[in-house]
């Protein structure tokens, strides 16, 4: 899962970045509205956390620009503007959620999770992957009450495949969702993670479509 944080206050952006990364998301940061719009239209993010008061171009124009160009990425507006008019305007322009600063970090993380869940074809908190259950609320995987020990990246890949259960997810799509812009890793790391997942979950849960990618059967 890859998330864009558009926030011009560097300390806050850093804090959000590390908190989201800890949850297993790949996080990109944008400091200005222009940068945010460019990234949002170029990368298929799973969610965008968007500040309104940003230099060059404000968050609302970024959002309307994104929606005009057909982007359907869930957007959570995170701003100090707290009047009812501001909230209505933000939601009308195309935001999916609206939070005012200051905020509780756990609430923000829960809302981000909810946005991603709602946008997925299977909007359940618990997803099935073969005999395993992916609990997206607790971000863990278990089988018959037995928790499987996965790293954050392994979990992220498994959740992505489970959400798109029945359809093939390409390597580059997996890569985009799991790595942020600063990580310059070869795309075969995806294969490495898949191998690790198979070791832990057994060989049959994730299947390979040669030349296309991976999938979990419906």
């Amino acid at each position, binding site marked *: 899962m890859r998330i864009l944080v558009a926030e011009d206050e560097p*300390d806050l952006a850093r*804090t959000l970045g590390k908190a989201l990364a800890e949850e297993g998301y790949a996080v990109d940061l944008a400091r200005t509205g222009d940068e945010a719009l460019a990234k949002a239209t170029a990368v298929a993010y799973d969610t965008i956390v968007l500040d309104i008061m940003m230099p*060059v171009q404000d968050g609302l124009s970024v959002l309307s620009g994104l929606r005009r160009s057909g982007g359907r990425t869930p957007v959570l507006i995170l701003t100090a503007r707290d009047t009812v008019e501001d909230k209505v305007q933000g939601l009308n322009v195309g935001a999916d959620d609206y939070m005012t600063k200051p905020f509780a*970090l*756990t609430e923000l993380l829960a809302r981000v999770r909810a946005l991603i869940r709602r946008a997925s074809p299977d909007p359940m908190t618990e997803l099935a992957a073969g005999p395993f259950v992916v609990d997206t609320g607790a971000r863990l995987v278990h089988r018959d009450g037995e928790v499987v020990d996965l790293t954050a990246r392994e979990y992220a890949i498994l959740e992505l495949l489970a959400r798109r259960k029945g359809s093939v997810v390409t390597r580059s799509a997996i890569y985009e969702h799991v790595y942020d812009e600063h990580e310059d890793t070869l795309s075969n790391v995806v294969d490495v993670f898949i191998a690790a997942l198979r070791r832990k979950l057994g060989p049959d849960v994730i299947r390979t479509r040669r030349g296309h990618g991976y999938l979990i059967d419906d």
Partner: protein
Amino acid sequence: MTDSLRARLLGWYVGMVMLVIASVAIAVCWGTWRARLTAVDAELRSRAASVSTAVLPRDGGRFDVELTSDATAYFQASTSRPYYAVWAADGSLVDRSDPDLTGLVAPPEGARTLGNRREVITRAGPLTVLTGRDISDIWQELWSLALTMLVVALAGVALATAGAWFLAGRALAPVQRINETARRMIQGDLTARIAVDRTETELGQVALALNVAFDRLRESIERQRQFTADASHQLRTPVATMLAEIDWALKRDRTAADYRESLDTCHRAATRMQSLVNGLLTLARADSGDLPLTRQDVRIDRIVAEAIDGLRPLAVKQDVSVDATTEPAVGRGDRDRLHDLVSNLLFNAITYNKPGGSVSVGVRREGESIELRVRDSGIGISAADLPYVFDRLYRADAARARDTSGAGLGLALAQWIVAAHGGTIACSSDGGTFTEFVVHLPHADHAAADAGTGRLIARFATPLTMPSASTASVTGGVQMGASSSTASTE
């Protein structure tokens, strides 16, 4: 309010109309009465003459009275019931038309009205002749005249009242509109304005003046509202940063390095809040005139040298060189505030600069004032932002995009300090390669003579001069007069 004014106008008007009608009515009645009486008197006099000629003296003091037939007929007429009486010189009654007229003595000459009767007393030789008649027909005529006039007057007053009510309403309609608008303003609709159709009328002028006043009021409230919103916004961001960082740090056990980083982040956020709160408090005090300034002779050139010393570490960190070209200049004012002013301008010049850039500061006497120039080779201020640089909490995008801690109050404070010292401040930039602030302060010899109060109040109501980028073609401090002290930092 309007209705009572309307009623009072109406009352005065109707009162005047009634007074006029009453005067006319009284004049008409009086005139008619006089005219009728004159006619009656003339008639009675002519009858008295005919009576006196009919009295013929006989011997022995006796008189014969032989009225002409015409006179006899007159005195027997029943409608006006005329009568006469004649007395001799000795006062004895000679004759009378009616035996019922008893107990009469000769009255003095003249005319008199006794109730419904009018009598004229004349002298003819030794005789005194009284002729009289009933005048109740005249009274009747007068009464009916008065009654007619009363009816007409009442109708007229009613008509005048209705007309006056209508006209007063029309004349006062603008007042009603003003009243309604004021009420809407009171209820919070600051956009309410009085509709003015005739600007040349007195009330039109009042309405126009009020509309202008409403505009001013609204602008002022808007500015205040915007400032409050901006201030709370500016305070929320560091609070949000601190809370989020603390939430993150407390979520699970962290390494010492993580805790250190979190504390650093919180420290930065708290520092921003502190400078913001201090700036807001200072400006609030300045606004309420609660910020006394001392007045003493101050060497501006020395303040510049001190400020440069204080900011040298920042300049080194930012890789910006600072050079000053100053000549001794004595201003008058609050030393600490003037130091704040210079430090603020220098801080901005160093902070919003480019690596390897430069800042030049110049101080020189220019006629009756001291000119302070701070010019940097920095990122500049765009023409669009230039008019707002002295606004509170305004930070140009370019400045915000850089990682700077300025809260956006420094230049507002600088402007206040300059204004409080009776000076001017102007900013110019080409939007890319330089920004220059020029401050003019009165020289100590020419500073305002109200030094005794030790208290200056400046408000932000009047915008200061703000030349556009194109007008600023003055080069740096090198050309500015003899250099007496130079501070330089690499």
